Each structure stands twice: as C-alpha cells, then as structure tokens.
C-alpha cells in the first residue's frame, strides 16, 4: 500500500464509491456544476466504468446566469464523451422575475435550492453525485460520503448513518434520496494537482485573461452579457482576471491575476492567503448558514 501515492489512493477510493452507487442505486446522476470539482468527478467516473461509458446522465442546474463559457464547455464535454445531459431551470423562479441581485435569499433559494429539488424529483434521481469536499467548510467536515436526504430533501446532521471502513449502506426508505460525495477526502490542492497530473480539462475561466469587469462593493464582477445592470457610475474596465470558483456570473467575484497557465494558477493558489470560497457571495452570511442551507436542501 505504501507504494501508492496519496493521489493514487484518493483516486482508487473515489472510483470505488462511484461503482458502489451504480451497483446499489436505481437512478444515479452526476450533478454537474461545470466547475473544476465536477471536471475531476467526471474524469473519475470515466475511469471507473471504462471501457463502458458512465451509466448515468449529467445533471446541470442552470440558473440562467451561468457564465457563457461554462455552458459552451458543458455542451462540448457531454458531446465529447457521448453522455446524456439533463439541464433544468426553475421556470417558476424565472416567471417570478428573481434576479441574482434580488435582495434576500430568494434567488439562491429559487434558482439553486428549489431548482435542484425539482430536477431530482422530475428525473426520479435517487442518488446524486456532488463535488463537495470536507475541507470546504466546517459542516461538510462531518457529512458522510453517502448523505441521505428526506423526501423533502432535508439533511439531518444528527441522524447520519455511521460509515465504517469502505462499507456504504445505500439502502433507502421510500422517498429518500442520497447525495454522494466521491471527493469528500480530497483537498483543494489535491484537486488541482490531479487536474495537472491527469490533464483534466477545465473551463478556461480559471485561467487569467483580459475580461470586462465592473467593481461592486469591492468585488470585481464580469460583464458576461448585456443583462448586468450598469449604473451611470459603473465603469467597465478591461482587466486581467481569473475565477477561483464558478457560479452565477453576477455573484462570482473575479480576482486580478496574471496566472494564464494551470501551473501558474496552482502557484497562485498555494501562495494565496484567502480560502477558496471567499469569492462566492452566497456563503457570506454567518458561519452556520451552510449547515442551515443544507438542512433545507441546498446541495
């Protein structure tokens, strides 16, 4: 065993998780958020079932505000591997006119949380692979690899099944579904290092390039299309920026950077002094908020 490196062991364990789910669940799907963690998950899934294709579809929750480059990458990826791609948008939310800048939590709730629930119900998904890692934040550190959700998609942190050895109990009660996190034991560095070693394709937004941005509350927001409302004082600047995490473009802050290659990005990441989620605005409301969001069904 000591002959294997830490990445080889993480890879083997993640592949084992993918195979257990496919062997024991009826309708798995890979929740494909198009970010780097999704890319690594897909890469592992391709390995787990080779020479067959992964026997499940990709499922993407489209808020309508995803970066255009993400959607192009998504479609090209599904096509390249010949995988079924399911895309779901919460039409109720669209009709209600919620926008990323709508005050309060209505946007995240309707376009992300509710949309995910709707999609899982609509496609009858009983096991959804997610790219969550335990190093991301504190409540994740206690979440199981096979994490059960009630019929209302709620997580009950006090009522988790013990997970011993590499034995996963995938038996569900009626209406329950499972979120499975094959990257639970990976860290951000592991993910980047694996992308580097395995040449895993990622969305070019992770690499620095001159992009049009405006400043909002000290954050750089990319003007990805004409829908971003610009005030009279807003000045569109063309700066060399990249993104550390990806989501809805009006809510995802860019960082100024010259890291135009993968190794540059890793260097920057290693020398950085801010954790990964700093760029994600949805997480900035209280330490316990992620736990609360998850209890309500946020992935």
């Amino acid at each position, binding site marked *: 065993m000591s*002959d294997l*490196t*830490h990445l080889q062991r993480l890879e083997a364990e993640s592949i084992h998780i993918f195979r257990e789910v496919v062997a024991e669940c009826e309708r798995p799907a890979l929740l494909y958020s198009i970010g780097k963690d999704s890319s690594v998950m897909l890469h592992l899934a391709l390995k787990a079932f080779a020479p067959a294709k992964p026997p499940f579809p990709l499922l993407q929750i489209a808020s309508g505000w995803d970066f255009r480059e993400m959607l192009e990458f998504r479609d090209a990826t599904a096509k390249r591997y010949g995988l079924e791609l399911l895309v779901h948008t919460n039409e109720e939310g669209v009709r209600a006119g919620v926008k990323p800048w709508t005050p309060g939590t209505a946007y995240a709730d309707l376009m992300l949380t509710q949309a995910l629930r709707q999609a899982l119900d609509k496609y009858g998904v009983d096991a959804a692979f997610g790219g969550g890692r335990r190093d991301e934040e*504190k409540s994740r*550190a206690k979440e199981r690899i096979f994490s059960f959700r009630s019929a209302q998609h709620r997580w009950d942190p006090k009522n988790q*099944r013990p997970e*011993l050895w590499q034995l996963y109990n995938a038996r569900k009660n009626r209406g329950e579904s499972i979120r499975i996190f094959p990257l639970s034991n990976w860290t951000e560095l592991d993910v980047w*290092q694996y992308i580097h070693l395995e040449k895993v394709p990622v969305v070019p937004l992770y690499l620095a390039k001159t992009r049009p941005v405006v400043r909002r509350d000290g954050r750089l927001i990319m003007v990805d299309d004409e829908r971003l409302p610009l005030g009279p004082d807003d000045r569109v600047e063309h700066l060399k920026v990249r993104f550390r995490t990806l989501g809805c473009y009006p809510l995802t802050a860019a960082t100024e950077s010259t890291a135009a290659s993968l190794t540059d990005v890793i260097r920057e990441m290693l020398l950085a002094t801010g954790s990964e989620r700093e760029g994600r605005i949805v997480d900035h409301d209280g*330490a316990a908020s992620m*736990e609360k969001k998850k209890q309500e069904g946020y992935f």
Partner: protein
Amino acid sequence: MAAADSELIAADIEAYLESHRHKSLLRFITCGSVDDGKSSLIGRLLFETKMIFADQLRALEDDSRRVGTRGGAIDFALLVDGLAAEREQGITIDVAYRFFSTDKRKFIVADTPGHEQYTRNMVTGASTAELAVILVDARKGVLTQTRRHSYLVALLGIEKIVLAINKMDLVDFDERRFREIESEYRAFAAKIRLSDITAIPLSAVGGDNVAAASPRMSWYRGPTLIAHLESAPLTDSVTHKAFRLPVQWVNRPDPEFRGFAGLIASGVVRAGDPLRVLPSGRTSRVARILGAGGEVSHAVAGESVTLTLEDEIDVSRGDVLASADSPPPVASQFHATIVWMHDEPLVPGRVYLLKLATKTVTATLAPIKYRIDVNTLERVAAGRLELNDIGYCGLELASAIAFEPYRESRTLGGFILIDRLTNTTVGAGLLEAAQRRAENVHWQALDVNKRARAELSHQKPCVVWFTGLSGAGKSTIANLVEKKLHADGRQTYLLDGDNVRLGLNKDLGFSVEDRVENIRRVGEVARLMVDAGLIVLVSFISPFRAERDMARALLEPGEFVEVFVDTPLAQAEARDVKGLYKKARRGELRNFTGIDSPYEPPLAPEVLLDTTRLTPQAAAEAVIAHLREAEIIDVDLTWEI
C-alpha cells in the same frame, strides 16, 4: 506553507508539484476525554501546517472573541467544532474529518468525541485509521475514558499509538508527571496487546512539541508530534498477503468485454495469474488488468481495477476473486464481536442484513455469549445489546460467503448490520472465525420436495398469518377460513396462540425476548408445514413488525400472506372475551399487548380486515377472495370438474 516551500513554489512550481506528487497518505484518529484539548490540538496542527487561510484566521479571531473559551485569545478549538448545535453545547458530537499535509505526507484526521455515549462514532473513525493519537490531560492522567478509547482502538485493529500527554503547561512541564502517566498507560496497554506506543509531552495551546521542540521541556528528546506522524511506518503488509478482490460491479459494455471491477483488498495481481472465484470455487486465469490509467501488467492492494478472465465463468457482485492456491475460507456460520450502534437494542433471533465487502446477505443473530464492559474489560452475561454495547455472539447467514478473520483483513472481516425495516446501519461487526458446530447440518436436497407434495394435494402451500390485538377476532376468522378451505378439499392446519403456548412454547413468558422466540418457533414450524405442502393458518397477536417480517423471510416470495385484523383497542377491550384486559388493567397481567406493551400494526399487509365494518363471515370471505386472487387456491382445479 513553510518558508522554504514558499520559495520553491515561487521559483519552480513544477519541481514543487513533482515533490508533492510522491507524498504518502496517513489516516489517524484522535481520541480523548471531554476537555483533554483535542479540538485545540487539531486546530493547532492545522495552524502549524499552514492550512488556515487569512480569511479563516480573521473569522477565527472574531469567533474567539464572541464564543471562545480562552478569554478572547485565539481559541483553536473553534476551527474544528463544526456544527451549530455543537457550538451551543460547547462540545463535539460527531465524527469530523480534517485534512492537512506537510511536504512528506497528506493526513486525514478522524476527530471523534470523548463522550461515553458516542462510542459508535469512535469506532467509525477508527475503522479507517492506521494510527491513534490518544490524548491525556497531564493533570488528570489515565482515566476510564482513556482505557475505553484504547480498547476500542485495539479492537478495530490499530496497532500504532501516540500517547499525547497534553496541558503540560498546567503541571509546570514536569518530567516526573509525564513519566508517571506514560508508565501507567504502558502497563494498561500491554493488557490489550498494544505495544507500539510513543509518548509525547505537549501543550496544544502553547504549541509545545507540536511542530517545534519545546524549549520548556528540554528533558524530552523524542520527536515532535508532527515529526512522528510524518515518519511512522505505514501498514504495507497488505501487499504481501494473498490476492483478494471483492467484485463490485460486472462491466459488460458489449458482448466482447466482460470485466470484474473492484478495489483490491490485499496482495498483488498479474496478468496470467490463476484465480479462484468464491464462494463457487471455480477457477480461471487473469486475461487483462485495467487500472485507473489504462491496461497494466500488475496491480496492488489499494487500487481500483477491472479484471477480465480467460474463461467464461459465472462471477457476480459479491463474489471474491482470490489467488487460486491460497483462497479465503467460505462459511455461513461465524463468531463475531458486535458493536451496537442503534437506540433499539439487538435482540438475539432477529434477522438483519449483513454487508461485508460487496456482499449483502440476511443474518440471524444467535444468543449473545457475553458483553464486554469496556471500562473493566470484563465479560458480562447479557441477553441483548444496547446502544454502544460491545458483545460477542454467533451469527448464521442465509448463504455462505468468503471471509477472513478481521485481524487478517479489515475488508473481508469487517461488516455492518442493517435493519431491514428502517434501512439504517444498526451495528458493526468483526468476524473472528467460522463456527464448526452445525457445519454439517444442511438441508438435504430430497427428491420428494415441497413442490412434489403440493402437486399431490393440488394446492399452493403458504402461510396465512393473522395478526392483531387480543380479542380482535383473529381466531374466529381463522377458524371460519379453515372451515371453508377444508370444505373445498384443501389440506390445512391452524396454529393458534393458545394451543402452541400450551405445548411447544410452554417454557416461554411474555418478555420481549420470549415474544421474539415464541414467534421464531411458530415461524419455523409454519415453514416446515409449508414444506409439507399445507396451507398453514397462524393466529397470533405477534405485536412486533420485526418478528412478523422474520417469519416472512423464512418463506419464499408469495408464500406469506399477512392478514391484519384491525380492531380499535377500545372495542377489543369492550369485548374482552377471555377477561384478559380486565386482569391487565388491574395489573395482574404484565406485558399485555395494547395495555403496557406496544402493538406495531403492519405497514403493508396483504389483507386488511376492518372488524368495525365486517362481520366475521364477511372477513373470512375477504381472505378467501385474496387467496384466489393471489392464485394460492385455484377455482378451476381438475378434480373439481
């Protein structure tokens, strides 16, 4: 990031990545009593290995002022005490996994709580760990909790122990105190066969001997905690053992390819190796090995692979591929140590699902031989296992499986028990050895079988199981059904609560254990009668769902018809044909169903009889109608014409 690292990263990122590519992985567990400073130690490890980013440090300083326990100074414990509920209670309540790495190793830490009632979390954390850090408060020394944790760690097969004697600052960094605790611990550890012990004096709060040698304890010449964790030898023996691969999934994308996918549990496999499939015993040779990166000539323990074989032999999920000349044993009866993890106690005789590696089978638990008092390590007699109890008992599986004793293989010797109704994981077990006693008592494959007997009597044998409160009308309805069947020329037998309890089960009372045994015997008798070709009518209160399901599990699908005679308690009590409710109300009868013992109604009975709306005659007709519908009795039998 250490300064040297930062320079390398800045100057030559490729060289840095190359050096980090070859890191190994060590999983360890930390355990200690409440207030031993465990969370502080883990927080300190994360801080010292630069796993804390500036924004997290800001949040930590903020939190320390708000909810910290160190008077506003940085409280490292807050880094790891995750869930909001825990913060409110000021304690850790579940297993949390933490990550940090140095340039030599990546570490995964299972952080488990010190509370007595959370043994199950510790066992969970220890199941994947190779090393344990056991914390002791230098002021308090070795406590009952320390012994308990050490025992659990040893039970789960962890051999390497770090005895972290913390809070040395509170005993003036006294060497004599350190030595005293160390020798007391070593004396205890020897009793549970732990010998690989490294004792380190620490102050997690002050950082002494965590990453850097403490100038305040110059008498200590051993390694710092991080230095020790970086250099502790990894368990590499699994590659020297015989090859084992539990098959997870059969990969057949097209008729040309049939691969068997799984994670290698032990040993090495090479193309051309002769393999044996267990439990069938068939043999073949390895044709190709697909590793994570494509086709390879060999693969080792810890890798996920897909193997193809030279011959077309039957292999499915749950089978084990093993080296042909040293295969693991196959058995269906075992002795095992069981750690119970559920609020509902383990009751012998009940049927659970057992999952070992990739195989899931039903398992019946034999009477418990003893329970282990983990505080004294004494063996105590026990009729059941409560939450967090550890016991030793026999178990019998519905079919034989390939296995190895737990001390030889965590993968082929560790299992979980799953409740069949709630689907939760209720226990964990460690297989010790196969049981020899009943090895030769197997069902004889007789030529005159159930089917032959049933054909002779022109009926499909089955059990019609009437359940409901005392006085619901079970026996009345069952009698009417039997009369109708008899008149129709069917061969039947009625097992009644009263007649069985007067004879076969006269040694049983009404405690939970006896009720379980009562139903087990009735179920077994009913099964024999079904095998004899009879339609068996069973009329028993049978209040517990699990027991009725156990009886159902003894039969083949479609052979068990559950009839719920549904009568409200008030009505049954008003009827009180035998005067039992009155006695129970007066306290003369104990454990009486409906009064001081629960009745669990069936969730999905084949037949539901609402006796507030149906006469006994109509109820009996409804049962007969169901038997026709289910084609158990056939209206067009040739002899009727």
